[in-house]
């Protein structure tokens, strides 16, 4: 009974005119940002973050969440049509989506990825609706020791499962932690790494860091690899989007497996949609009876990852909302919205802010429906948007970033920091250092320190507290497994890479290569 009244409450919030409007706005912006290659969801949300100061927290979250899952819908468009991933989560969609487009089946691919996206998202939302309260109920058993263990696992997972070199991932996590330490320490009031700059007392702004490392760096990279769009308009007419019966038949199970995998990885802090997409692609290829079709336009190769990344988009809200632990940098921004509006994310959130929690979740249905209805007829429009010359698009985006940075703290310091982090981000891209672990280290590092110290006080200095408390011990054991798995799989993929030298590599790092 309670369950249905919650759902009702959620829909009553989500279906208010204001919230539908902002949900639509978020979904639209998200699709837009997703379609533009090189402009990621993090950059988009970072840029729009200051806007949310002036909105109700629920409305603000509904809009940002719309951008968040909207980009994953839109991101597949550029992957398929141009072989340029709109977002990292859609990178793997290039592998079979672009070949499909070259075979004149681009319309089919765009249509089917939209369907897969909707299916994956629905799967995720249902899990979110059913299990978040359960997770939240157990969340009170999470003390400082458990949070520390959880965050340690997130950092380890981020550095080892994230795409590319584990060592580089780890290095970025550490750099992120160091940047996160800037400012006044909350435990001892010691001022660290502030170089006497007053504005740095409150630490480095997450917005400045995210916009610099992602937004600005993406733009510099994209400028270096501009290619003229080469799109066959015939393949985009509405009649060209109907899949064959065989393609529909072969889509069901990959979609279901992708959605399950995506849901699981979404709930783990430190993993998320990109990893879910890559792994579900890898699994589909491994269990397929015809793995040789993959990479040449296999429909399974786009259905599984697109269902996975959208499912993960939704379930990523479980740890974020019920534990107050951001699973990704974007989720950290969502938590920031809550905190700016004085809402403490954590075990009390669902009971103390039911209209926020259920309203947000139910808005996911609204948003996904909007995206479904939006994406299919507008495929042609997105494609035309891709033809806006970069020399007009990018300066406009840069101006947007500067305004956003300034307004995030009303201080010119933030604009300079965006600039500095943009240079850092560019260097990272050139030397193939992933940005996501940096952000995660930045967000999780200081939290880890805080929980570690508190756990130490509460255990009166006994390190065994992390291994004696059952939940903490379990997480620690899992962390060990993740670490071992990371090392093993890195070793394995290195060997595989040596074997397949010379083959075309479509990972996002590879697309960064100036061509």
């Amino acid at each position: 009974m309670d369950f249905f009244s919650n759902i009702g409450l959620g829909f009553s919030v989500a279906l208010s005119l204001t919230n539908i409007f902002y949900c639509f706005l978020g979904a639209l912006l998200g699709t837009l940002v997703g379609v533009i290659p090189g402009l990621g969801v993090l950059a988009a949300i970072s840029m729009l973050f200051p806007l949310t100061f002036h909105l109700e927290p629920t409305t603000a979250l509904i809009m940002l969440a719309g951008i968040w899952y909207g980009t994953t819908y839109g991101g597949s468009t550029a992957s398929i049509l141009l072989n340029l991933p709109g977002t990292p989560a859609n990178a793997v969609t290039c592998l079979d989506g672009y070949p499909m487009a070259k075979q004149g089946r681009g319309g089919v691919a765009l249509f089917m990825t939209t369907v897969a996206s909707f299916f994956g998202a629905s799967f995720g939302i249902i899990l979110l609706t059913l299990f978040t309260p359960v997770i939240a109920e157990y969340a009170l058993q999470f003390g400082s020791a458990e949070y520390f263990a959880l965050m340690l696992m997130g950092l380890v997972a981020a550095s080892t499962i994230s795409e590319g070199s584990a060592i580089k991932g780890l290095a970025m996590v550490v750099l992120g932690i160091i940047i996160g330490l800037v400012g006044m320490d909350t435990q001892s009031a010691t001022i660290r790494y502030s170089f006497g700059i007053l504005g740095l007392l409150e630490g480095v702004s997450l917005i400045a860091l995210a916009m610099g490392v992602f937004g600005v760096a993406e733009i510099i990279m994209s400028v270096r690899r501009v290619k003229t769009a080469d799109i066959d308009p015939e393949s985009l007419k509405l009649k060209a989007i109907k899949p064959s019966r065989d393609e529909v038949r072969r889509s069901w199970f990959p979609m279901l497996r992708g959605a399950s995998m995506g849901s699981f990885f979404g709930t783990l802090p430190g993993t998320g949609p990109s990893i879910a997409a890559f792994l579900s692609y890898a699994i589909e290829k491994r269990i397929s009876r015809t793995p040789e079709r993959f990479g040449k336009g296999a429909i399974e190769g786009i259905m599984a990852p697109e269902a996975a990344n959208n499912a993960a988009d939704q379930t990523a809200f479980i740890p974020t909302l019920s534990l107050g632990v951001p699973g990704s940098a974007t989720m950290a921004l969502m938590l920031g919205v809550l905190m700016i509006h004085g809402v403490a994310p954590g075990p009390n959130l669902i009971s103390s802010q039911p209209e926020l929690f259920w309203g947000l979740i139910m808005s996911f249905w609204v948003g996904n429906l909007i995206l479904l209805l939006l994406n299919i007829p507008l495929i042609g429009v997105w494609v035309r948007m891709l033809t806006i010359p970069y020399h007009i698009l990018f300066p406009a985006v840069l101006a947007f970033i500067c305004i956003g940075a300034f307004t995030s703290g009303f201080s010119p310091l933030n604009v300079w920091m965006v600039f500095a982090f943009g240079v850092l981000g560019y260097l990272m891209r050139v030397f193939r250092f992933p940005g996501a672990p940096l952000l995660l280290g930045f967000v999780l590092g200081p939290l880890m320190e805080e929980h570690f110290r508190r756990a130490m006080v509460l255990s009166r200095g006994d390190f065994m507290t992390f291994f004696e408390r059952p939940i903490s011990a379990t997480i620690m054991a899992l962390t060990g497994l993740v670490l071992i798995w990371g090392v093993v799989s890195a070793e394995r993929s290195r060997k595989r890479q040596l074997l397949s030298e010379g083959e075309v590599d479509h990972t996002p790092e590879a697309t960064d290569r100036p061509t």
Partner: protein
Amino acid sequence: MKSILTAAAVALGLAQPLAAQDFPTGPVTIIVPYSPSGNTDVFTRHLAPYLEEKWGQPIVIDNRPGGGSMVGTAIVAQAEPDGHTLLVTTSAFVTAPAIQTSLPFDSRDAFVPVANVGHVSYVLVTNGDSGFDTLEDFIAQSKDAPKFAATAGLGTTTHFAIEKFIADSGADVDVVHFKGGGPAVVSILSKETDIYGSSISSAGENLKTGKVKALAVLGNERIDALPDVPSTGELGFPDLEIKQWVGMFAPAGTDPAIVAKINADVNEVLQTPEFIATVTPLDWTLFQSTPEGFAQQIDEELTKWKALAVSQGISK
């Protein structure tokens, strides 16, 4: 508009020197060194429209949280002393400097106290299922097995309240710092910690549902919101008169006439029935203060908390 206000002020016998009469000549920024929607922020946001009406200028509330309120405080310390940048902060203004020894300003020299607007009371709370029902139980049990106290952060008034309680009662308690009142209350709910000096609004619903119970009100008087809960004064601790006050400050060097004008205007708002009606449900006790009286209070409290920090070994 301004001339009408000035005329009204003159008519009320509040004539000011020229500089103060002209104040404010532009938008006024009030820096709140806490996140939006905290106690202090909410209070300031209720206050601002009344001052806007009196001054005929917009007021911008600028939240600059961090460093236990010292980040926003430092910004005002360096602001132009023309009354157009003001600080509204809590008693952390006097407690935080007792612990943070490397602040880029001197709390006594860098500010002019303008007005002490009021306070909220603290209640010592524990988990509803904890093994103690009274403060005496708690103190006695802590001597057998040491307990944990939560604070809303190092150097906050909740921290000093607990330190003072420990010093006066001899209870064996280790202090654990959390980031804000919310997580501190959660630690009481999850029994991670045993006692917390909470404002009524922080404990909120949990106090009503019995998930959290109140052991004592800090101070010598009981409070209206919890008439059955004893005060620490009744229980034999007369020196635990600790409230979280909220006050307004201007940068040092601000024209005393402007300070007097702002003080008078704020005091007037605090007597407005509609204003009182808005903030009373939030557990506020409002004050009328003079800049001189407030300055003396600040001076005394800075000395008092520094001494406590030294004797409790929490000052670096």
